[in-house]
């Protein structure tokens, strides 16, 4: 049995990679254990550890000449060596089919779910897609309401742009996306007096997006005018923004806008491409109706 390893430190965790090879002429079952001072965090899929792993290490069955690469993490400083071969035993091929079954799962269907989770790709949307999503939706609403009820909230168009600069959360904090009932869901339903525009048509939905983009554009205009501005232009921009404090944080907000706009643009063009790909045979359907 041939074992090589490699270890990296990442924050307070150690990441261990190893390769194991069965150089015998018969199948072997090998037990590899961690020597790190913390439980093994095994590879997981859908929340389930890969089969064979436990918190001390992994048990593998290797055919003659078979090589396997594995890796795990542990919240402990590196040691040398990080892993060791605890046990190697011959595989009784006759008993194999019987002994494997109870390990795989308690009952047939339970193991089918586990098997599906282990073998298939993760279905969950990436964390980045939900960061700043639902949780902030709720938090932002009261602040938003407070702001609109404050005396400065009686908005002429110019001022409403300025108050938009204020909130800085253009894409996060309200119902930009939920006119179509795609993202709003439960969060909005929990909040009856802030009833979202369930009856809004598709055009109004795009209008709402347009309004939002206008607000962002106003902010970017302002940032552009301040970019490499001479004193006169800068003074003018500050005066227009009702004082320099109105401009505080403008750079971060515009940078955040840039990120969000880029994400939005990628998503929008991907959707547009998909929309262009479809060809619903509406006319044929109508004729048949």
């Amino acid at each position, binding site marked *: 049995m041939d074992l090589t390893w490699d270890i990296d430190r990442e924050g307070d965790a150690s990441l261990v990679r190893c390769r194991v090879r069965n150089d015998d002429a018969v199948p072997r079952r090998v037990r590899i254990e961690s020597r790190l001072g913390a439980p093994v965090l095994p590879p997981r*899929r*859908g*929340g*389930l550890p890969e089969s064979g792993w436990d918190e001390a290490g992994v048990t593998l069955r290797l055919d003659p000449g078979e090589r396997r690469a594995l890796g795990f993490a542990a919240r402990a400083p590196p040691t040398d060596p990080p892993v060791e071969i605890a046990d190697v035993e011959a595989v009784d091929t006759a008993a194999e089919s019987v002994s494997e079954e109870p390990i795989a799962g308690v009952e*047939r*269907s*339970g193991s*089918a*779910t*586990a*098997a*599906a*989770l282990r*073998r*298939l*790709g*993760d*279905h*969950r*949307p990436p*964390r980045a*897609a*939900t960061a700043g*999503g*639902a*949780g902030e939706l709720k938090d932002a609403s009261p602040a938003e309401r407070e702001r609109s009820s404050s005396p400065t909230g009686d908005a002429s168009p110019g001022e409403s742009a300025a108050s938009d600069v204020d909130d800085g959360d253009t894409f996060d904090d309200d119902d930009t996306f939920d006119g179509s*009932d*795609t*993202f*709003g*869901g*439960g*969060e909005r*339903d929990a909040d009856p007096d802030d009833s979202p525009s369930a009856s809004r048509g598709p055009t109004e939905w795009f209008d709402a997006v347009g309004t939002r983009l206008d607000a962002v554009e106003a902010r970017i205009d302002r940032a552009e005018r301040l970019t490499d501005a001479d004193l006169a232009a800068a003074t003018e921009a500050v005066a227009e923004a009702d004082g320099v404090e109105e401009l505080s944080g403008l750079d971060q907000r515009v940078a955040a806008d840039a990120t969000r706009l880029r994400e939005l643009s990628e998503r929008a063009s991907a959707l547009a491409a998909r929309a262009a790909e*479809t060809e619903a*045979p509406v006319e*044929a*359907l*109508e004729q*048949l*109706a």
Partner: protein
Amino acid sequence: MILAVAGGKGGVGKTTLAYNVAAALDAVVVDADLGMADLPGGRGPDLHDVLAGEADPIETLRAGPVDVVPCGRTLAGARAADLRRLEAAVAAIERERGTVVLDCPAGRRADAGVPLAVADACLLVVSPRAFALADAIRTRALARELDAGLVGCAVNRVTEEPPTDAIADALGAPAAVVPADPRVGRSVAEERPVVDAAPDSAAAEAVRELARRVPR
């Protein structure tokens, strides 16, 4: 009896067929499309809440012409959903209501596989176009591996005579042709299953034919 309605490709009419077959079976339809729910929603708890361990499956049942277990529409909810809870949840609904139809998502990820693993049988939906058939064949292979017996396939939204025999041979199950009918297309949004709205139509007969193949 738990029937999964799957199909590999998106947009072939899985949700519509699941809803209408559930109507013909007098079953509950569960919106198991965690990332892109399509069945009518509701205000109460939904499947996301159940899979996050925050609701009882029975309290998510939403009465209608066809009773629905709706699914949340948020990405955060889809992320929080733990598919290991699906089996027990569906089993609880089955105990309460008898027959359950699972509307599966497209693709071959865990969210498509676990409903097949949980189901007793599956029904594949294909559109009469070649590229959709390739996806259906892959889903067929997945269903076989996960032990969901194929009871039939629906060739959906047919406007011209499709190569039904070729499709049935490729998938290894009898193929029923569901003709394109706008009443089927509208049935989910209007919550009027075609077997009620137009019981004499060819589409309704095709849906009943599919339902008859489901062992009970």
